[in-house]
């Protein structure tokens, strides 16, 4: 019952819609690269977006209905911050946080 024609159309439409979201700023703002507003956003938006992505995905990684709400993700996150401020080695920071999170999750170290 797999309809290959539908699947092909589906993938084409999804690909076009996704690419459009990425190409639109380049189509409409390319002439305004030097505009002070575009420069302002270029300077501050990445930091804001990074903090935003970290917050949203951190919240989604955490279990909030446990007896220690959110600690399963907050502890590894704090570890990442501390290790990164200490050694400033991105791979080390990421590896230590990830391993801590996996251990907490798989060994059920923080009881739900």
């Amino acid at each position: 019952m797999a309809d290959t024609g539908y699947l092909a159309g589906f993938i084409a439409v999804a690909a076009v819609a996704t690419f459009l979201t990425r190409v639109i700023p380049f189509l409409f703002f390319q002439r305004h690269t030097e505009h002070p507003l575009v420069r302002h956003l270029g300077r501050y938006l990445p930091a804001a977006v990074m903090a935003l992505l970290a917050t949203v995905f951190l919240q989604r990684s955490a279990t909030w209905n446990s007896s220690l709400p959110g600690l399963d993700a907050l502890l590894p996150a704090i570890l990442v911050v501390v290790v990164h401020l200490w050694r400033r080695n991105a791979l080390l920071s990421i590896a230590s946080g990830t391993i801590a999170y996996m251990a907490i999750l798989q060994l059920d170290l923080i009881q739900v």
Partner: protein
Amino acid sequence: MNQSVFRLTLPILFGYLPLGMAFGVLFTTQLDYPWWAAPAMGILIYAGAGQILAVSLLAAQAGLLEVFIAMFVLNARHLFYGLSLLGQFHGAGWRKAYLIFGLTDETYSLLTSRARSADRHHEQAVDFRITFFNQCYWVVGCALGALLGANVAFNSSGIEFALVALFIVLTIEQYKALADAFPVIAGAAAAALAILVLPEAHQLIGAIVVVSVVLLIQYRKLRHSAGAGGADHG
């Protein structure tokens, strides 16, 4: 160059392999399509949350207009990413279309955070490799997941935290480069607000809209004070 690019993209590898595999497993266990359609979607669409949503849309045999709107809205946050990269991608020639196509959350974070030399052409070549390496990880993840189906050999649950850790590290790096906490606080506050008032599917775009408005207000304030100093030329 490839070795340093690989090092730089290693956290993305650890994030994209399990996430791609999660999509691949979902795709083959939920749908009655050939396994290779999963990596094909990774090549042609290349959007994590978008592809995972696509599995439920495919299962529901959704109309193509509905598919278009759902994918556009879900990925609408990308509308803001290009604004920071207009200058960086300028004059990238044949590479430019692919650089734009491959602008995911993770690639955007790497491209806007890494140190750059004055040689723009060289930096664009590095950007291109970063984008390409990242997509390779994603496509391999989709393929592995689809092939393995439900039989995942080792317990990799939790490894996707690598992406959260990456975002935290990049936030610290952005803060250190700017020496200004305002955008970081604004971003985190906007995310907290979105988490509190919006359903999960709309949180990212909602937070980005809020933080963009905040930056716009900050821009107007800065310009106003600059204008009061007499240095404003429209």
